[in-house]
């Protein structure tokens, strides 16, 4: 019965949703996810776990672990032919997903089976079908959407810049008050992609043929020259960059720099509440738009409870769960669902929700939303940024 779990997984794909729900009843599901945010943890522990228990009699256990390590664990288990793992759900997107898919660490396809996915998700949209240019193919189900925004201190910057030109000017006028994280950082790389979009003249060209060296060859210079131009006026004269967003946030919270940035349009709210960010923190997006990003939930190949995992993921995608996640008391993150597909009462609730003063209006956000491009661009930026920018001082 070496392939026990494998077979069970294959059988599961044939089953009806009701059978699956029945199978999942009374089981235990382990979700492995990054555990470094108190709001997210509380959302999972205080809202999701009890409600899932009530709805499906499934016990949800959250295990804090870095996605890197989760994948490392899975790949070693794969190599050692360990058919029965410990992980049922992982929180994943981008490159991690690409690696997981490539090394066949995921179970699926499964997302088509989920009722909430079918009912409420805009299944046609690119950001659900593609994860950083990698075709999802039902191996993961969308859980949330976030959008890239800049945070700034209103007291120090009365009017934030509106485009990259203005940003450059502002940086030069205020030397040392701006920086962005290293290209290896998730957020730092997103900032670079924004500049890239701008240099190329919009994401369309980048999206056309997936990863396209020609486009890069034509526009790379514009990108690098912009970055080099601002470099001397960055924090520490651009000699070094914060290794992670956390470091940038820390600089911002201490007032060393006046702007920070990040995925999740509402992230400043809880930080302000906890006294980490100044109360005068507000956010802005550039006129050229801001990249939106979807993150997903997936099931590992050797999940011991795939049925339970599917039910739990479905539950996490339910309008109730998504609305609770949207509330800034917990997480404050945007829904993975298409608001227009929601039932009336949920739509109403959504409309009435106040996300806080630091969050831009939904209209502003949705009008500036830009799609993600192929993950290869991410790698390309990582590989060349140090050579082209940092070393060219």
């Amino acid at each position: 019965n070496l392939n026990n779990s494998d077979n069970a997984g294959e059988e599961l794909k044939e089953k009806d949703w009701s059978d699956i729900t029945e199978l999942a009843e009374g089981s235990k599901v382990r979700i492995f996810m990054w555990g470094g945010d108190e709001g997210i943890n509380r959302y999972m522990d205080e809202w999701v776990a009890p409600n899932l228990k009530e709805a499906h009699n499934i016990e949800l256990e959250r295990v804090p672990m870095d996605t890197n390590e989760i994948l490392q664990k899975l790949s070693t288990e794969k190599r050692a032919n360990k058919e029965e793992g410990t992980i049922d759900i992982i929180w994943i997107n981008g490159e991690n997903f690409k690696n997981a898919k490539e090394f066949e660490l995921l179970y699926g396809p499964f997302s088509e089976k989920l009722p909430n996915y079918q009912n409420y998700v805009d299944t046609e949209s690119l950001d659900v079908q593609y994860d950083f240019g990698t075709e999802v193919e039902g191996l993961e189900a969308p859980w949330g959407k976030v959008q890239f925004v800049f945070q700034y201190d209103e007291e120090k910057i009365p009017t934030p810049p509106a485009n990259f030109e203005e940003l450059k000017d502002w940086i030069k006028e205020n030397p040392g008050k701006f920086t962005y994280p290293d290209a290896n950082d998730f957020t730092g790389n997103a900032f670079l992609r924004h500049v890239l979009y701008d240099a190329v003249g919009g994401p369309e060209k980048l999206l056309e043929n997936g990863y396209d060296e020609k486009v890069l060859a034509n526009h790379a210079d514009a990108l690098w020259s912009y970055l080099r131009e601002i470099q001397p006026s960055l924090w520490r004269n651009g000699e070094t960059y914060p290794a992670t967003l956390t470091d940038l946030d820390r600089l911002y919270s201490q007032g060393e720099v006046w702007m920070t940035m990040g995925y999740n349009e509402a992230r400043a709210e809880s930080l302000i509440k906890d006294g980490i960010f100044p109360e005068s923190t507000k956010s802005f997006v550039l006129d050229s738009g801001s990249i939106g990003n979807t993150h997903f939930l997936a099931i590992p190949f050797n999940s011991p409870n795939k049925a339970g995992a599917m039910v739990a993921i479905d539950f996490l995608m339910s309008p109730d769960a998504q609305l609770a996640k949207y509330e800034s008391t917990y997480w404050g993150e945007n829904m993975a669902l298409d608001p227009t597909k929601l039932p009336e009462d949920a739509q109403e609730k959504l409309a009435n929700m106040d996300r806080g003063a630091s969050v831009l209006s939904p209209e502003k956000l949705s009008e500036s939303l830009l799609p993600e491009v192929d993950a290869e661009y991410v790698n390309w930026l990582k590989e060349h940024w140090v050579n082209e920018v940092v070393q060219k001082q």
Partner: protein
Amino acid sequence: MKWFKSNNWSLALLPAFLFTFCLVVYGLFMAAQESVTTLNGFSLDAYKNIFDNEAFLESLTYSLRIAFVSTVLSLVLGLLLTKFLFETLNNHLARTVVWLPMLFPHFVWGYMMILLFSQTGWFSTMLHAMSIIDSPDQFPVLTNDRYGIGIILTYTLKEIPFVVLMLLPVYAQLNRDLPNVVMTLGGNKWHVFKTVEWPWLFPVLMEAGLIVFAFILAAFEVPYLLGTTYPKMVSVLAYEWFYQGDWSKRPESFAVMMTVTAIIFGLLIILLSLVSRSRYRMMKGNGM
């Protein structure tokens, strides 16, 4: 059976030896294998790549420099602390205070250094309060700096207690009469140190130094927090190449780790040959 009886020690060492051998040496073997395996089977490309890579070479020298400086500093300070405070450190409570840094993981200790030494850190605030500086950027750059001052500071303070821990038994075992011999023969304090203490300290210092050095070269948390964007320490490179991107850099990452291991092994062999002879003589000597 007879063999076991007459070689009692082998039975005593067996668990520890087998245990480390199986887990660690096997792991090392796997890592070596991983570094020479590509999709097309065996190849040394990974090594070629990293040694052609300017950035890697530079970060290697950078790392070696930082590891060396931190090691030497913590050894020297640890030695001074032990030497001059040996009596005080015999007190249980006093020793506990010195061991304080050991209670915190390296990362936290690095974070404390940021709290203290960054441009908006507590010292900067202090100088501001004393009206010596009026904005944070007048404070010297001590963290995330080019020269790795922050990393060195963190490691040095963090490793001092370890060095003290290693050196205390040496001082406890030192012969109390030998210093008198040196003095009466006309030697001064420095001679006492050189002829009486140093020969015993040397092997232990070397060993402690190697452990600290290896640790600094291999651990990535502190340089990740306190290092610069370029050059990075090799451990950070290895970490990034291991986890990030599309895993195509993994052989390179393993190659970096194997290179670090090779360097440490090289040092180990040099130290062993330096130390073993003198240690043997001292074991037999009557000085102790």
